[in-house]
């Protein structure tokens, strides 16, 4: 069973590092939560199932010591992107890779059981989720309640690891399905798109959970959404300022966003903030054939240039 193997490996890795970051059961059966293992007896708390939704690698740039980290396929892209941008020292990190068969979206599960507190949740034969609440039991299929990123997942097996728990899994999802939702959205007329974003961003409360959960946002403590020198934005809660903040986040992730989906997952107001970043990634792939956090030798497109750009023609008026 891969949980036992995971615990074994982590126990072994534990001696080479100062802390191992994994998942443990959270405050209720539906939520897992990151756990920082600094004592051998804490290894037993580790869990591994579709509840393990957080991208644990976002702690790495802030930890100044040797760290063991449990990593799903999509999370591993963060580590490669960190290395491309020189934000972590590879030999300070021991990566325990977990081939992943999909995780749940807490929001979608809650939607299915109309937000009742969960008494128990069990996973049967890899694709069924059995949820028991006060109002009775419901059987959901993982493909209905998984986050969008899982239904188009290209990298279920971590692209970089020191230890792999279980056998690598190949993706069975067609590559062009990844940006299906973006192409769908672009079919809307221009005015409707603007109104859509104004309506969605109207709910934003600028709590910056999306920014602080984003692994690539390492300048959280001096973000230009809050500083007064440079003075980009006011603290006024108008749609202009909210729109501007989300554009800052998207543009600063151009050619860097590994689509781990954390920004959308953590938004307490349910705003689809990941869409903007996926659109830019679509353009990065189209323009430069670049996918963030996939291979180590790549250079993020905004860090470099070609004298002759193959795909950029001069715009005529």
């Amino acid at each position: 069973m891969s949980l036992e193997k995971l615990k074994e490996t982590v126990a072994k890795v534990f001696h080479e590092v100062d802390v191992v970051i994994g998942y443990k059961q959270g405050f209720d059966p539906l939520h897992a939560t990151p756990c920082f293992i600094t004592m051998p007896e804490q290894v037993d708390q580790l869990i591994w199932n579709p509840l393990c939704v957080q991208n644990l690698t976002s702690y790495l740039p802030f930890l100044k010591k040797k760290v063991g980290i449990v990593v799903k396929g999509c999370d591993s892209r963060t580590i490669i992107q960190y290395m491309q941008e020189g934000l972590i020292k590879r030999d300070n990190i021991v990566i325990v890779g977990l081939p992943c068969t999909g995780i749940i979206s807490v929001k979608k599960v809650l939607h299915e059981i109309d937000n009742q507190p969960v008494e128990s949740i069990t996973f049967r034969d890899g694709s069924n989720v059995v949820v028991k609440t006060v109002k009775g039991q419901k059987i959901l299929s993982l493909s209905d309640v998984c986050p969008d990123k899982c239904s188009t997942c290209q990298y279920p097996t971590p692209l970089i690891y020191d230890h792999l728990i279980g056998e690598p899994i190949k993706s069975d999802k067609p590559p062009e399905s990844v940006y299906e939702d973006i192409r769908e959205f672009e079919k809307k007329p221009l005015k409707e798109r603007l109104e859509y974003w104004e309506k969605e961003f109207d709910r934003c409360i600028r709590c910056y959970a999306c920014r602080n959960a984003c692994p690539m946002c390492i300048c959280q403590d001096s973000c230009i959404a809050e500083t007064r020198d440079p003075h980009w934005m006011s603290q006024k809660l108008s749609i202009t300022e909210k729109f501007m903040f989300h554009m800052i986040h998207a543009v600063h992730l151009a050619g860097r966003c590994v689509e781990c989906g954390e920004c959308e997952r953590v938004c307490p107001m349910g705003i689809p903030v990941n869409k903007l970043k996926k659109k830019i990634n679509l353009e990065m792939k189209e323009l430069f054939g670049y996918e963030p956090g996939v291979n180590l030798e790549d250079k993020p497109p905004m860090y470099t240039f070609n004298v002759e750009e193959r795909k950029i023609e001069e715009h005529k008026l």
Partner: protein
Amino acid sequence: MAQVGYLPKEKEKAFFETLSKNALVYVPCLEGDTVIFRPFSPERTLCFERSANIPPKTIIFPQSETLFSFDYKKNADDPQKTAIKLETNQEYPDVIIFGARPCDAKGFKIFDRVFMDTDTPDTYYKDRREKTVIVTISCESPSAGCFCTAVGGGPADKEGSDAIITELEKGYFIEPVTEKGKAIIKEPFIEDGSPYQKEAVERQKAANDMLKNPFSTDLTKISPSLFNSDEFWEQVVSKCISCGACTYLCPTCYCFNITDEQAVNKGERIRSWDACMFFHYTLEASGHNPRPTKFQRFKNRVGHKFVYYPEKYNGVIACCGCGRCIRYCPVSVDISEIVGYLRGSGIEPLKGPSKDGANAG
């Protein structure tokens, strides 16, 4: 006239429309999967099933408001001299918040002590607060993370509410609490509620029993040694990402920031929400920051609610147990679990000596 009221569900929309004639009625509306308080209008879909994502504090303590506007006026005959004109505009409409939760209402009580029971009251909050009627709906069942009964609240707690409603089969049983509440049951479409009293009380009791208490010891005892041990905070808060979700969604968080914005010669001084979890919250011009790490900030956050506020306001805990900070935390930090440790309720996170006791973050 009947002491208690009853509003049949089919007359709900009509009732809100009449109320909206002479007051701004805020009701919890469903937008996508998010429940948020909006001014009532017929085409909005209402949602009374669960507590709103963000509490109604946005209505009385808005996330950003203009304290005053200023205008630099050039003096025609002496260009050196510029006069400054300050203007404030504090006319607020009458407001009825319909569908708040008992924990939200209790939050306003926490605000009142700070903003109003002081020799320098906050006139902005005070004017709005006095013009607001809070009609609370009692909870049928707790959401994930709720622990209101453990901090002196309850699914049908009346504190801070002007009237309290209990949803029944075909209508809402309304119990006025204050004078403002009594005015509500005199509104059109409200019938006599006494026949429904018994059923309402049963439902309230049923809801009360569903709540479990995360702390197993008495309320006030927080162990100072554990509270002041940096290692404890590093251990329990390593996963926190120091965002503002928990503070902005908290009905008892009232910290704010004051900033100026100016365009050419006009501008305004803006008060906006702030979070003690943000790095710049205590950052000084010299660059010194008394609380630079997220552990110190989180210790201050928990300390404020469970130690400092009680110290200042004879034992009142500045937490209403609504569970939002637990439900919406990106990494599921559970404040009730941490306060449980602080009260020494036996769950020891630090079993045995830590590996190297070094800073885990």
